[in-house]
């Protein structure tokens, strides 16, 4: 074994790596926001919607959760141009990641909604809250609080899963790593460095998420 590790050529390109990390975080966080919106809408539709709406929401969740993200990504990236929507790979990546995450968030928040006791909703009605107010304050807020850790775990999977969008040449950390590997042939070093970057990003993200949970949901039960 006469291999000498050379981290130099990689660490020299640190601005590129940092830019890749920034892009990964950008893709992840944008898709988290959209995924959360889709998920809340989906969960409300699945629990309170009329039968056809419930059926559509369930079909969406089952289809997305039982097919790979990579296939969803390819489907969106290659099929949308046929219906006249030519998306750049970065936009297609955000669309696919959001639709993907939305299905998981729907299920998580639905579980949270079902953990809200029926008496609580009745109490809201007795206090004269409107249907909209009940859903927002009496159902969703405690529901999201109950599933906040599960939501965080799913967001972390999203952060890691976003590496897949390098397959359609979207620009993010994994794509940067692949380019650097082709330029320097220091494959092992590059992927180690990038793995550490993802690892640190995940630890920081999950710490921030826990902290924000404590800030957001301060009241005691």
């Amino acid at each position, binding site marked *: *074994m006469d*291999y000498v*590790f050379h981290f130099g050529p990689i660490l020299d390109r640190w601005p590129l790596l940092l830019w890749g990390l920034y892009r990964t975080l950008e893709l992840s966080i944008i898709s988290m926001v959209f995924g959360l919106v889709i998920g809340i809408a989906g969960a409300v539709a699945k629990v309170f919607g009329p039968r056809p709406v419930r059926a559509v929401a369930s079909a969406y969740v*089952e*289809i997305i*959760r*039982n*097919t*790979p*993200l*990579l*296939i*969803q990504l*390819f*489907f969106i990236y*290659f*099929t949308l141009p*046929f219906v006249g929507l030519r998306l750049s790979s970065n936009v297609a990546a955000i669309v696919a990641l959001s639709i993907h995450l939305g299905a*998981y968030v729907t299920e998580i928040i639905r579980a949270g909604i079902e953990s809200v006791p029926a008496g609580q909703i009745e109490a809201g009605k007795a206090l004269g809250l409107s249907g909209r107010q009940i859903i927002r304050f009496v159902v969703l807020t405690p529901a999201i609080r109950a599933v906040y850790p*599960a939501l965080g*775990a*799913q967001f972390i*999977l999203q952060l*890691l*899963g*976003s*590496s*897949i969008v*390098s*397959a359609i040449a979207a620009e993010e950390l*994994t794509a940067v*790593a*692949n380019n650097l*590997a082709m330029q320097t042939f220091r*494959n*092992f070093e*590059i*992927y*180690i460095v*990038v*793995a550490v970057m*993802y*690892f640190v990003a*995940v*630890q920081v993200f999950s710490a921030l998420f826990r902290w924000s949970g404590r800030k957001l949901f301060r009241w005691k039960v």
Partner: protein
Amino acid sequence: MVRDFTFNEAYFLLISARWTVLLALVACVGGGLVGMVIAGLRVSPSSLLRRLSMGYVRFIEGTPILIQLFMVYYGTAFIGLSPDPWSAAAFTFIFNSAAFFGEIFYGAISAVPVGQWEVSRALGLRFVPTLRLVILPQAFRLMLPPTVGLIVQIIKGTSVASLIGFTELARTATLINTVTFEPALVFGLVALIYFSLCWPLSLLGAALERRLQVQQRRSGPLSKGAPAQPVAAVAGPD
């Protein structure tokens, strides 16, 4: 050269699914076995072993499987290895899913009340016999639902192996898409194949989960060593 998407292409896709199934099987069996070792280490009496296995799990869970795959496939040249895509994928998926299996098994083991360990010790059982004869039989029904969920995640996750050129379902799909230029048809059919592999398992997992909840409600948290809380569903690589 543009080819039509005919029955032949559809058939080609369908039979390439066997590589997806094979890789998933290897990952589940191999990963399950290594996962058992990891779970055993996580509850072992030695704190060094406990910490090492926990570090391993955290590393695998904290980095993308795609990077792990690239590390094994492109990055092993420095020890003189140049694995073919199949071995690289099999190796990566076994050791990736092992961490997730390990977490599920560990969660189920630690849900068994501590009293069971103490009683076994009082009866003179050592660590391994305690685990095998007392703890695992009780932990087994707890690990079943999340294990089925993880298998679904693994089947979907194998699609990532296409990115190092392992010709399974997802890669066959991209190959056929480039010659037929029928992405809606190709990826729609491939999604359907994945769906028909995963959905029955998802339904099974949900049914097992419901049955476990019913059992727990009936038996109460303390009788027969049933756990006070269900094992959290573990989502795997995707």
